[in-house]
Structure formats: structure tokens, C-alpha cells
């Protein structure tokens, strides 16, 4: 593999981690969705680049799905939902920006240490891709934990899935069945979420998950 191929793959995967950090501190839903669209866009570019250098044309399908569904359709639809719900102005955070960023840095360091150590024999592209992918997955998890709003939790989940797609495409020659299923499951997940948001709105007049927490636990 020539140097420049490697560098570009590296650049794209690294950008994905950085954009995950950007998502972490957005305090408005609108800008969060825009950043998520960028996340998906970079993912599409990264997958397309992998398709090119691995000479694996089926990966273009995955890239196309990332581009069309994740970077365009889903952000647009979520935009509409939040406007209709009238919650596009603010985000509530459970944890402040500072601690969240610090925790994020810690998680990235953790995934680098873990992945680079155990994959010493794997080829360098795959192993660094995997390390980046794990970082994106963990940052997505962190975002789900630090947000209270159902929409931003969903965005956290979707960026987590982006990390999984990055890992799946970085693993050279992984069968198509998985990539399609990943994309497909995101689609299903989105439908599920759409239904949920609709119902949550219908019942609670809010999508703040804290409202749901009131009903948890035992019947008293």
C-alpha cells in the first residue's frame, strides 16, 4: 500500500474522531444535527476511500447509504421533527462541557492503548482504523450518557453506529452482508425512533427523557 493511500484513510478516520468531539459540546439541537450530517459525510468519504484502495466495489454501496441516508435524509427529517415539536432552541446537558471533553479524551486514549496493543500483528491501516473506530464508538456512548434529550441521545447512537461502519469497512474483505445489515438496521432504528418520538410527544408534550424518568420503577 502506498503512503498517500494510507495517509488519506488515516486523515478521514481521524477527522471522524474530531467531529465526534465537536458533537460532544454542541448545545443547540440544530447545530448538533448539522455536525452529525458532517460526521456522516466524512464517514461516506472514508468508506468510499476504503472501497477505492481495497478495490472492493461493494463498499461504494455502503458509502452511498451513508451519504444519502445518514448525511441527508435523517438530519433533514430530524430537523423537521424538532421544529414541529418546538424544541430546536436548546439542549440540556447532564454533564458540563469541560468534564465531557475530558472524559472524551480519556476514552480516546483508552481505545488507542487497548487497540494498538492487541493488534500489533495486524496490518497498520486496519489496526489504526480499528483504534479510531473504537474511539468513535466510545464517544457516541459518552454522548448518549451526557445528554438528557431524546433527540440528542439518538444522534449519539447514530454516531456510535458510524464508528461501527468505520470498523467494518476497515476490516478488509468483510462480507457485504454485514455492511448492508448495519445500514439497514440504522434505518429500522430510525423508524422505531420516529414512532417513539411521535408517541412521546403525544403523551408528554416534551422529549426530555427526564419526564420519562418520573414514571420509572415500582408502582406505589
Amino acid at each position: 500500500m502506498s503512503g498517500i493511500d494510507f495517509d488519506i484513510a488515516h486523515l478521514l478516520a481521524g477527522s471522524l474522531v474530531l467531529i465526534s468531539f465537536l458533537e460532544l459540546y454542541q448545545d443547540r439541537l440544530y447545530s448538533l444535527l448539522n455536525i452529525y450530517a458532517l460526521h456522516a459525510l466524512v464517514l461516506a468519504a472514508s468508506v468510499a476511500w476504503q472501497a477505492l484502495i481495497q478495490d472492493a466495489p461493494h463498499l461504494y454501496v455502503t458509502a452511498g447509504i451513508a451519504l444519502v441516508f445518514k448525511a441527508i435524509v435523517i438530519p433533514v427529517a430530524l430537523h423537521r421533527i424538532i421544529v414541529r415539536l418546538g424544541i430546536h432552541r436548546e439542549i440540556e446537558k447532564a454533564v458540563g462541557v469541560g468534564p465531557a471533553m475530558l472524559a472524551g479524551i480519556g476514552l480516546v486514549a483508552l481505545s488507542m492503548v487497548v487497540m494498538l496493543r492487541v493488534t500489533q500483528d495486524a496490518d497498520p491501516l486496519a489496526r489504526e482504523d480499528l483504534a479510531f473506530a473504537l474511539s468513535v464508538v466510545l464517544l457516541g456512548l459518552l454522548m448518549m450518557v451526557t445528554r438528557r434529550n431524546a433527540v440528542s441521545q439518538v444522534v449519539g447512537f447514530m454516531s456510535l453506529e458510524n464508528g461501527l461502519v468505520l470498523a467494518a469497512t476497515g476490516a478488509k474483505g468483510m462480507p457485504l452482508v454485514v455492511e448492508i445489515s448495519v445500514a439497514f438496521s440504522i434505518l429500522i432504528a430510525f423508524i422505531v425512533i420516529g414512532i417513539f418520538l411521535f408517541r412521546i410527544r403525544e403523551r408528554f408534550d416534551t422529549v426530555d427523557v427526564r419526564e420519562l424518568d418520573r414514571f420509572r420503577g415500582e408502582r406505589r
Partner: protein
Amino acid sequence: MTFDAVASNGLAGVLAIPAVAAALLAVLPDYRATARLNVLAATLTLICALSLFFGRPPPNSYLLVDDLNGTFIALTTFVGFTTSIFSASYIAHELETGRLTPPFVRFYHAMYQVLMFAMNLALVANNIGLMWVAIELATLTTVLMVGIYRTHEALEAAWKYFILGSVGIALALFGTILVYMAARPVIGEGLDAMEWTVLVSRAGAFDPALLDLAFVFLLLGYGTKVGLAPLHAWLPDAHAEGPTPISAVLSGLLLNVALYALLRFKILLAANAAALAPGPLMVTLGLLSLVFAAFMLYRRRDIKRLFAYSSIEHMGIIAFAFGMGGPIANFAGLLHMTMHSLTKSAIFFAVGHVAQVKGTQRIADMGGLTATHPVLGWGLILGIIAIAGLPPLGIFMSEFLVVTSTFARAPLLAIILVFGILVALAGLFLRLNGIAFGEPRGPSAKAQASYVPMFAHLAIVLVAGIYIPPALVAWFQNVARLLG
């Protein structure tokens, strides 16, 4: 028809019948007919599953039937069949009281068959990617069914289940990718490197560090679906707020399917001498779940939540047994899993009807059940006695086997195990007293229940506690050997 044709028809039937039934149930309007169709489909699936014992198709790169998953498929389709009978009478009552409307019932029946399809697919999958897809599908269908009542509590439970389930599933996918990464240098690129039969035969040459890491992710991911503490948070809510037939299927079947996925990867790791031993991890999580859930039984006010915690407790015992490994512990684990599935679903059949006649799930609002509804009350008592692990019922047998085999190898662990089991037993009996005896409380209208599924399950558990046919013992011993 030749023998081979029967075998491959059996496999095709296990997958195709639920899929076709789901499509039909989604479009047919009449709920009486659809409830019957649901039972019919479950019956046919059971027949196909049983036919797999008499001949099975050779494994291909996507599907596989061996002794291990044959056992799971038989159990899944059997409980799926009995639950469909219970579901028919349960749903009829829900329609009468107006908790569910006909369109929702149609949706419910279609989802029931999609769930059966997804679980069967997860069990017969020979490709670890396909298995993951199937478990994801099963998760999504159960999320939809848990939220079907659209009450505050149901939505909250479904949302929690969805978020925690998806995170678990995501971690499991990452683990699956890592297994592929470990396999690729040895097997080469493509489908073969995700094919379970190929993976196991070549596992000795895989990079052990990658396999270790993969198993950690798989354990956390699928472990969430098994309901192992501390990843269990979704389970009590999902059980309590969904329709009771779904609680029965969740506890009796879906947890087993996730456990089956874990067991497959455990076998894979065991085939690599340099990889970490997966047993101790499972033993730790199992014991933690057992002791934690046992104590949680005491403060429960909701009857379905009570039995949900009891499921966590028993999944802990099962994970512990499989984690200990060896022919006797594996045998005990398999037996315990079977007995738990049958008993717990029988209990949920009883609980479903009890909650319907009493109009509540609060334990404080139901009492003296043996006086107002003797058949239901005594059925529930028998179920609780069975699940608490008292002789002569089947769960006593399997728990006894787990405990004695552990005492021989790790006495300290056995003490914790016995402690957890006893704490759970006392907790269950404390509640049993309030539910079944004492001053009758709440409405005492006659239940329109189908008792057959409940008593059929309990009869099997009772008989299994006294006598297990030698053929079945030999079969379980064989599967236990496979598990290593």
C-alpha cells in the same frame, strides 16, 4: 420424499413458516382468525423443529443445525407454541377491556411471528454476522411490543430497552468485527472468515489478544441481552410493562438466545489454547447477577417485576454453570435453562391471567388468590415452588447438580451460590404468602383463562424433577460435551 429433503424442509420450515405467517397476520383483519392462525403457525414451526431431530441438512455458509442449537430450537419453538395458545386468550381479554384495539392486535400478532423468525434465525445461523442481524431484529421487535400499550410506563420501558439494547447490540457487533479481524489472516478474506464451523476448526491459529478483546465486547454486548447484572437495567421494566405473553417469551426464550450466542463464542475461545479462559468472566457475572437479583426480590411491589428479577437470578445461575464448564456443570446448565424456560413462562401465563382478573399488577392489591381463583392460585403456587427450587421439581434437580458439581471444584464459589439461591427462595416465599393466601382482596370475577399451557409446562417440570428419560439424559450429556 427422501430423507434429506425432509431434513432441509424442516430447517426451511423453522424459518419460512414464521416469516410467511408474519406477512399474513399483518394483513388479515379478523382478530379471532388471526389468533388461531398464530397458534397454527407456531404449531407447524414446532413440528418442523422436531423433525430436525430425525435428520438435518449439512451446514452451509449461512445455516447450521447441530446438537447444540437443535436443543435450543426445540425449546424455543415449544415455548413459542404454548405461549401462542396463552396469548390467544390473553389478547381476547385485552380487546374486551379495550386496552388494545384491533389494529394493535394485528400488529402484535405479526410482530410475534417476526420475533419467532428472528430467534430461530439467530439459532440456526452459521455466520456470526447473520446471527448478529437476527438478534438485532429480535431486539427491535420486542421493543415495539413492549411499548404497545402506549402508557407512560410502557413508553419509558420501551425507550430504556431500546437504548440499552441498542448499545449492547452495537458492542456485540464490534466484537463480531474483531473476531473477523482475528480470523482473516488465518482463513483469508470473505465469507469463510465469518462462518462459525470454519472459525472453530481454525481457531487455534488466531491471534489470541484480538480474540480476548473480541470476547470482552461480545460478553458485554450479548450479556446485556441475557440480562446479566450490572447490564440488566432494561429487563424488569420491559417485563413489567409489555403484554404478558411477551414477558413469557422474553424470559423463557430471548434471554436464552442471547446466551446461546455467548456460548458459541465461548466454544470459539476454548478452541484457542492461548486465548483467555472465558469461564471465570461468566462465573463472575453470573454470581453477581444471582446475588444482586436475589436481594432485589424483597422490595418488589409489582408482580411481573418480581418475576423479572427472578429471571435475572436464574440467568445468573445458568451463566455460572456454563462458565464453570465441564461435562457435569454444562449438563446442569442446560437442564436448568430448559427448566427455567418452562417454569418461568408457566408463571407468566398464570400472572397474566391474575393481573387481568384483578385489574392490577400490584402485589398489595391481590391476595387470597387460592380462595377467589383456586385453579390460577394453586397453579401460581406450584410455579413459585418450582422456580424457588424446592424438591421434587425440575429446578431443584438442576440447581442441586450445579451446586454439587461446584462444591467438588470450588467450594468458596459454591457457598456464594447457595447463599444467593437461599436468599432468593426466602424472598419468593415472602411474596407468595401475600399473593396466594390471607384475606381475599380485589375483584373475584371468574377468569376466562386457558390453563392448558400453564399446567402442561408445570407437569413437564414436575416429571423432570422425578424422572428424566435416559434418551434425554444421553442427549444433554452429548450437548454438554460439545460445550467443553
